[in-house]
């Protein structure tokens, strides 16, 4: 029923991190220092410790309150038996202690909640930024391969799972163990036999419980995260192909498979839940057994006068109070399991080392050379094979070819977002892999076919490329991409908010905003993937003319299956791509 933890996890990480290299996958994730359980606690800073301390004080006060009350009542009852004892009995002090404990308990537990949530929020903040940093440090080749929105969403969900461990895993154990140790110390001082009984109770709960339950609970939790991912993917795919499935009648089979997955997941949940119930019952039974034994021995001792009945009442109250502290332990293994799962999936992204090239000096006029380059996007069967070309300042290259033949792959390779499977790429004579990221970006700009506009205003989107750009500069750029007329008639002009994926803009407009942004950034080598899609011919021609003028000193590469007007210094039709070397030499 339950698979070994390695198997599902590996399968999950394979799917969710397509960009990871083989070396990354085979590394044992738990040993990564970046996201260890200790790290998750210590990152909370002082708040983590303070939360633990306050919690221990609050819970301790709660138990002590009950114990002091039990002791006080019993002692008062005994004192009431003889007038002498009654006279000697100081009732003011215990009453004051009881009131103090009551206040202490309320304040400490309230404080603990605030403080520990502050710690968790700090931790989450740190983790989110950590993922952001990790992804922005990630080698450009890896990032290029792992950028799907769904993956990002899943990563954010995983981050939220990581906080389970300090809050619901670590803290209950710390509180239970520290309070038990204090109580055991007290018993050691009072009575050896009672201490021995309590020691057995501690041994059973803190020893047997983790050993018998934890590994199984973690396996179940890991299995569930993996299975839930599989189920989600399966359903998404089913929905995407719903009409095909309904017209072929295959929907029923597919829904059955989904039901089976659901069933497996539910059964695993059932086991995990059952494990929690069983451990809770175990904790309660062991504590009850301890209390029973303490009563059995303690009552004898009390009758023979070795121990006062009031003290015994106090001890019984502590045992009853401890069940409230111990019961949450039964849920800690689940929390640990879910944190582990999230940890394993995030480990590769968090704390990515700074890698990539170091060369920051690309002097001289721009040049771009490809030598015998072969590349594939993911599992693609087709793509550029043995492409060689050499581009110099003032060159314009038009790459033309049918859909899906690998033009975009070639663009990604030329811009340094995809590592070639074979061959060399050089920019200004320097191998591209050796160039530092920022320097390369300043040199080569790619307009992707998948547009991305941020949900910000038009001006903010443009200013990403040049934070200190004046309004006039922005208008100039909009003029160049033939959007100025459109933007002027918007009620809020440059301050018009743009939705995600450019909602509110037509596909062609969004494409031109992205193009304008890239032009504002101004890298000397421009690679534009289908820049004219969704544009009418006059606008496309106008843009092309503008680009030609703008790029006199630079290099312009346009990928398009549409027919482009005017002369290019170099034009490749895809079928002729293999012969590019010859053509390139003729430039």
């Amino acid at each position, binding site marked *: 029923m339950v698979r070994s933890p390695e198997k599902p996890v590996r399968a999950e990480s394979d799917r969710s991190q397509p960009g990871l290299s083989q070396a990354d996958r085979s590394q044992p994730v738990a040993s990564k220092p970046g996201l260890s359980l200790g790290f998750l606690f210590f990152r909370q800073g002082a708040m983590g410790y303070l939360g633990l301390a306050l919690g221990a004080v609050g819970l301790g006060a709660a138990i002590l309150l009950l114990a002091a009350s039990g002791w006080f009542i019993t002692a008062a009852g005994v004192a009431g038996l003889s007038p002498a004892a009654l006279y000697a*009995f100081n009732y003011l002090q215990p009453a004051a202690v009881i009131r103090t404990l009551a206040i202490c308990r309320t304040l400490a537990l309230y404080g603990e909640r605030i403080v520990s949530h502050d710690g968790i929020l700090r931790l*989450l903040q740190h983790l989110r930024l950590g993922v952001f940093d990790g992804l922005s440090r990630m080698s450009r080749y890896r990032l290029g391969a792992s950028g799907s929105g769904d993956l990002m969403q899943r990563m954010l969900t995983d981050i939220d799972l990581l906080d389970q461990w300090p809050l619901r895993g670590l803290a209950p154990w710390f509180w239970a163990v520290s309070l038990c140790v204090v109580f055991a110390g007290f018993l050691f001082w009072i009575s050896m036999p009672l201490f021995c009984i309590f020691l057995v109770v501690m041994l059973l709960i803190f020893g047997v419980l983790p050993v018998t339950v934890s590994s199984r609970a973690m396996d179940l939790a890991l299995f569930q995260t993996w299975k839930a991912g599989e189920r*989600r993917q399966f359903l998404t795919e089913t929905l995407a192909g*719903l009409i095909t499935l309904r017209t072929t009648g295959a929907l029923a089979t597919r829904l059955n498979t989904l039901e089976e997955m659901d069933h497996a997941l539910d059964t695993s949940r059932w086991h995990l839940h059952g494990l929690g119930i069983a451990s*809770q019952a175990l904790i309660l039974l062991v504590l009850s057994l301890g209390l029973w034994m303490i009563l059995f021995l303690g009552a004898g001792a009390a*009758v023979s006068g070795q121990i006062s009945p009031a003290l*015994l*009442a106090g001890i019984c*109250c502590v045992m009853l109070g401890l069940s409230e502290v111990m019961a949450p332990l039964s849920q800690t293994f689940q929390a640990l399991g879910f944190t582990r799962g999230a940890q394993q999936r995030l480990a590769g992204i968090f704390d990515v080392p700074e890698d990539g090239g170091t060369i920051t000096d690309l002097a001289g006029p721009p040049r771009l050379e490809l030598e015998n380059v072969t590349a594939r996007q993911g599992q693609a069967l087709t793509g550029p094979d043995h492409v060689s070309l050499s581009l110099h300042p003032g060159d314009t290259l038009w790459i033309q070819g049918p859909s899906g033949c690998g033009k975009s792959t070639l663009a990604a390779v030329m811009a340094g977002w995809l590592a070639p499977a074979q061959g060399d790429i050089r920019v200004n004579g320097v191998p591209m892999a050796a160039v530092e990221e920022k320097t390369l970006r300043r040199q080569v700009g790619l307009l992707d076919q998948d547009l991305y506009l*941020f949900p910000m205003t038009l001006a903010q989107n443009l200013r990403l490329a040049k934070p200190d750009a004046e309004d006039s500069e922005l208008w100039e750029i909009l003029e160049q991409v033939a959007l100025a007329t459109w933007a002027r008639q918007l009620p809020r002009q440059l301050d018009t908010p743009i939705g995600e994926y450019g909602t509110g803009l037509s596909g062609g407009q969004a494409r031109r905003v992205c193009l304008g942004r890239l032009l504002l950034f101004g890298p000397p080598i421009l690679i534009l993937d289908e820049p004219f899609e969704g544009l009418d011919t006059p606008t496309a021609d106008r843009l092309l003319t503008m680009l030609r003028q703008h790029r006199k000193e630079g290099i312009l590469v346009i990928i398009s299956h549409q027919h482009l007007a005017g002369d290019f210094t170099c034009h490749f039709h895809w079928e002729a791509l293999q012969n590019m070397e010859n053509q390139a030499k003729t430039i």
Partner: protein
Amino acid sequence: MKPDQEKQAGKWLKGQVAQVTSLLWLSAGAGVTASMCMVVQCFLLAHLLAGLAMENRFDRHLLWLLALPFLLRPCFLAVKELLGFRAGRVLRRRLRQSLLETIAAAGPHRSRIAGDGSLSAMVLEQVDAMDDYFVRYLPHKILAVATPVLIVAAVLPHSPVVAGLLTVTAPLIPFFMYLVGNEAVRAGRRQFQALSVLADRIRTMLQGLPVLRQLDAVPPARQTLAAASDRFRIKTLAVLRMAFLSSAVLELFASLGIAVAAVYLGMGLLGYVPWARGTVPVPLGSALFILLLIPEFYMALRRLGTDYHARAQAMAAAVSLMPLIHARRTVFQGGTNVWVPAGPPGIQMQQVSWQPSGRNQVLHAIDLDIMPGERVGLVGPSGSGKTSLLHLILGFDRPSEGQILVDGHPLDALNPDRFRQQIAWLGQRPEWFSGTVAQNLALARPHAGEDDFRQALAAAGAWAFIHPLPHGIHTALGEGGQGFSGGQLQRLALARALLRDAWLWILDEPGAHLDPETAVAVRRHMGQVTRGRTLILAAHHLEGLEWLDTLIRLDNGRIIHIERFRHGPVS
């Protein structure tokens, strides 16, 4: 989350819960029995201790009796949990099934409800998010009433004063919680908004990271992100301070309850109670019994407080499910007749109009007679109603007026699933599932052999590129058909449609996103292999469609022109 939406969702949630009321009551019943065990346990323990203190007597019978509640209480608690889980499981399964049915019935119109990603999140994560509500919150809600009543009843004969104290504080607790909680709910709503804004910002930043890197704009973006999440933390803490007050109120009452009762009972035993000096109002056994019960009294209420977030979570999930629940009512389930075609069918549309609820009319009184074996093209600008017309024929929608006849059978009366299985359908972008080429083709004909595949692939012009692959038809197709070019995928889709061997073909702009040369080649091929079938095809432009028998021009939901190239059906 708007209040009226919440109200609606709450009502619906209640309706769901009604299906498993008996299980939930059983679960609560087990909980109440466990509480009774607790009362018995406290009673025995108190009297054992009182006997020791007052008479120096160790009553072994009491000790042996004590073992009984010690053993039984954990068992009943476990039963309570198990029954709650069972109820949740039953509910989740039913709910998921009915949601899936709704989505499947909505077919292409599911996009009106939500995107595929959100829909699968609804069916999976949102349904799962309700679990804690069923398993914990609902039984505890019953327990939060039953246990305090039970305890007050147990205390009353021993000390009316303490029983009075408990009964007075018990209603005060919900009252204070209401006051504090109301503010917390309002603040919580604000925080929820802040959270979604933050989550959105992080997501967009991550998604746009390649752009940020391209533009060398990562550091400022990181600064914005850090500042936003700092603001969020401070805002959240302000909210939490408020929200935790309600649990602090409970904590305070529990502490004060114990403290006040202990001082009163202790003073009473000493004979110092102001209004009864020199007498003992509650004897030691009863006093200890009461003291041990008081934490349990507040415990039931406190547990409800900590489970409250389960309710909030379930509410949020229910609110997000509402669009899908509402959609269920509008989805047409279809008739029961089964149509078995003997050859290419004829299709008549009589005065068919269609107006989706709440929107403008899409089709106006369409009259159309498609002969058996006729191949018809629907052309017109986008938004002219081509796709809507196809969806009516596929039975994903019903005409608001008029009717559609298939071989003379009214479409309304046919079982829509059985009817659709007689259709070969091809869309703009063919739909693929992860698996091999063969597995994807087998969807069309589950028991097809290698020969069938080869014939179909050859007829569709796909054999030429499948054959040389190292794994042939067992080559893996990635998600969404990764690995093959658009033209190749269209040919594979054609092969799949051919395997259906259907008499009726419905095609929605096949190859619309392909480059013109590839599109024309695929379309011409389509013409060769669909001779003798009834075929309806929607298209933007006509290149490669010279083989159509009839061309129908649509504009604004009306037929503006019918052009027949050949006379009589081709058979």
